[in-house]
């Protein structure tokens, strides 16, 4: 087989480029891996189908009518003073209003069902995780297990996770596209996010709210593993003998993006509440 040359080569490369392009969507909610993102994807598909009927007529009628009634077409009707028709008026007000009313019911239902604060229905209890947005990293505290991690959120497959979020610095927003929509994390305040993974895998999480020069590096991995592996992982971290002590804590609040995840074998109790209280009181904690 001879390799195509010149422009032919470009044509041969085009489908490859497009295939590579669809690769990108694997990382997003269209490749949902959990019940929340899955439900939101479902809504996306419904809305997309409805929208075909909204945009379709405009996309068809605009060019057809403009071309048919062009100046050079001698056969088209010309009624320069025709400017109103009740039936047409009904046609352009009533169906769009009807569609919006229909979508409103859909919106109401889905907004409540997939509100970030709505717990995920499951026979298993939700795992509590506290997330703190820092410059430019995420601290995840497992309060019930007494451990913490930076830039890696390990969760068991199939079990709901309930995140409480705050920020140790400016406003941030946590998004794991394949698992759930985002929520802001704001200093001195707590927001909540529920998510779960349906199958094992590593999913990219990120901060989407610009917060300074290391913003683009503020990514983390959500690692979903089977339940027994999760228990073993907890044990391993607990035995790693790297506590989140005062020195480690001070380091966390420095402006930096760690190259790899960090695991802390123990955390001081009430750390999350302390960070909240410090933010409200204005205790200096951010190094300039």
């Amino acid at each position: 087989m001879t390799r195509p040359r010149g422009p032919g080569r470009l044509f041969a490369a085009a489908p490859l480029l497009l295939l590579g392009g669809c690769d990108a969507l694997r990382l997003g909610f269209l490749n949902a891996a959990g019940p929340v993102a899955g439900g939101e994807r479902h809504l996306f598909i419904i809305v997309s189908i409805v929208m075909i009927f909204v945009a379709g007529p405009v996309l068809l009628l605009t060019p057809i009518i403009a071309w048919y009634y062009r100046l050079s077409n001698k056969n088209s009707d010309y009624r320069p003073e025709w400017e109103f028709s009740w039936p047409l008026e009904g046609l352009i007000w009533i169906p769009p209003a009807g569609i919006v009313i229909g979508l409103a019911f859909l919106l109401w239902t889905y907004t409540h069902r997939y509100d970030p604060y709505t717990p995920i229905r499951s026979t298993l209890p939700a795992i509590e995780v506290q997330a703190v947005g820092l410059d430019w990293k995420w601290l995840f505290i497992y309060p019930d297990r007494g451990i913490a991690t930076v830039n890696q959120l390990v969760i068991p497959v199939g079990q709901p996770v309930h995140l409480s979020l705050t920020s140790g610095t400016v406003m941030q927003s946590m998004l794991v596209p394949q698992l759930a929509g985002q929520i802001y994390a704001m200093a001195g305040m707590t927001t909540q996010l529920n998510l779960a993974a349906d199958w094992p895998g590593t999913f990219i999480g990120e901060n989407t709210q610009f917060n300074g020069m290391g913003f683009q590096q503020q990514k983390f991995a959500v690692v979903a593993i089977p339940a027994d592996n999760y228990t073993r992982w907890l044990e391993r971290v607990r035995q790693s003998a790297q506590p989140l002590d005062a020195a480690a804590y001070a380091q966390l609040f420095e402006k930096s993006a760690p190259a790899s995840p960090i695991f802390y074998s123990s955390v001081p109790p009430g750390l999350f509440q302390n960070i909240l209280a410090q933010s409200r009181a204005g205790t200096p904690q951010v190094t300039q």
Partner: protein
Amino acid sequence: MSQGIWPAVLGRFDWTALPFVLAWDNPTASEIIGAGAASVVVIGAVVAVVLITWLGKWKYLWSEWLTSLDHKKIGVMYIVLAFVMLSRALIEAVLMRMQQADAINSSGFIAPDHFSQLFSTHGSIMIFFMAMPFLTGVINYVTPLQIGARDVAFPLLNSVSLWLTGGAAGLMMVSLVVGRFSTGGWSGYPPYTELAFSPDVGPDYWIWAVTLGSIGSTLTGLNFAVTIYKMRAPGMHLMRMTLFVWTALCTSILMIFAMPPLTVATALLALDRYLGFHFFTSDLGGNMMNYANLFWLFGHPEVYILILPAFGVYSEVVSTFSSKELYGYTSLTIATMAIAVLSFTVWVHHFFTMGQSADINAVFGIATMTIGVPTGVKIYDWIWTMFRGRVRFTVPMLYSLAFMMTFVIGGVTGIMLAMPPLDFLVHNTLFLVAHFHNMLIPGLLYGMLAGYHYWFPKALGFRLSEKWGRIAFGCWVIGFYLAFMPLYVLGAAGMARRTQEVFEPAFRPWLYIAGLGALVLLAALAALFVQLWLSIREREANRVTAGDPWDGRGLEWSISAPPPEYNYAVIPQVHGRDPFYAGKRKGEFYAPAAHYHDITMPKNSMTGPVIGFVGAAAAFGLVWHIWWLVILGVLAIVGTVIARSFARDVHRTIPAAEVAWTDMMWLQAVADATPIPRQIETTSANQGLAEIAT
């Protein structure tokens, strides 16, 4: 410079605030680009000054343009400002697209610090110093002509508005040369923009530029609302006004009510930064959520401030170039008003992700979708206007058609984003960036460009090159699709906006396509400048002095092109909608008046330029903590206003004989012109007189 007298004189200025010094010390690509941009500003300013001096045009510029209170000249100056700022902000956009295409698992050629200034200035300029001046310019030029008035209600205030906007835009340009701009984006969200996190001058430049601009816009809104309510020609009932005037009225009302929350938000942020208040800080009772609410209480109506005038332009253009009455005038006015009112009820959709209850999100989501109904109605009204018409595919009409088809795609993604669960997924990603560009490029830029091509012959007296207009149009449309459709894909794949470096090789093809699109958009802008240059060169062949190149419908086409300073030798009497289109078919126009009277017009005033200049100087002083300059600037503003209030000789009377002579000259030109059919309106045969089909 930390000792002696210098801090008192220069505030916190330091030599390292100059990008040239930074580039000398640290010659990386990023710093050299920064210094290069600063050089362009400096060299551009020097070349402009030298050129004007060499041509001996200072006096002309000062007395004919800068101090003019003529709404037409003020309108043209606004549009010139818009084009200058569009050029800068578009180049910035291209730089960002090139950086993202280059920075896939590499740091690229623009450092994070410069990249974040780029997206902050790009957004701030495009909204406040490109879109706002452009639409304000078009409203300025067209509104008094269409309602049959000689000027706006408050001509001096109009000049002050222009110069406050100009001063603010100047401050944006100065930030390129002295110091740095904010890195907090066009919305300037605290606490990031608070002193604790951004102690540099950047957010201060942003605060004062936006504050000056927003005061200018509030004054413009007041001026045009009063103009439209009080200055209409006899017989010009509200329901006989053109759709453009309706949209100008709605935009003015929105400006009056929506700009103050922005001014308040930036002022409170300034109090935080200058006097240690805690409105939006994280600590001591401050709360940034208040800022988000105030900002978007302005920000959402702002979207309609930007889009409604474009809707007005499309209504004029589609009707004129279909040779047909506008379909559903009443329903279009109702839809316009409905949009204006509803625009105040949806601001929370900019932060569905802030943690409020599902009930609140759902209510605001439904309100957001509701706006889709009147907007959809408008699109269909334009389609039914073409229906049974005779459509001519001139440049403004091409923009209108491209708008209808592109805007509806933005509407679709807008409905998606109105759904809180979907917003959670793509908020703050490139999907959102794609959506609002998909609304604002067709919904604002195409509209303003359509208006520019449509009214240019009226304003300057000659047509723009049709060929280069089509080339520019093609580039704007192709460039838009190439640049922004990939961003939908990237956003759906989770790529956050404002990202200086990309770590996903899978994003590469989409970033390349988007980068190519940005270059095509730059070519579109270049084509517009080529078009302007060629059209000026060939102006004698394309004159339309008789004033009606498109067989127009509104009163503005019933006078010469360009119009005399006083617009109408005799204020017209209006008998219906489309008064000129109907009237010229009954032979009511192109006749000398029975009596001409003296016309009193406002004299030029230097109040506007002075207030704009010292306002910008005071703002510069505030940015750099140069307190003597702030005090002098504020005193100068107050002093100027007081001095002006003592001026008694502020009017100039144009004698009836001169008015009559000018009118006769024009009527002679009309008599000499050959009426032309619509088929050849884009050729040199078009002298501005339409053949009346029988």
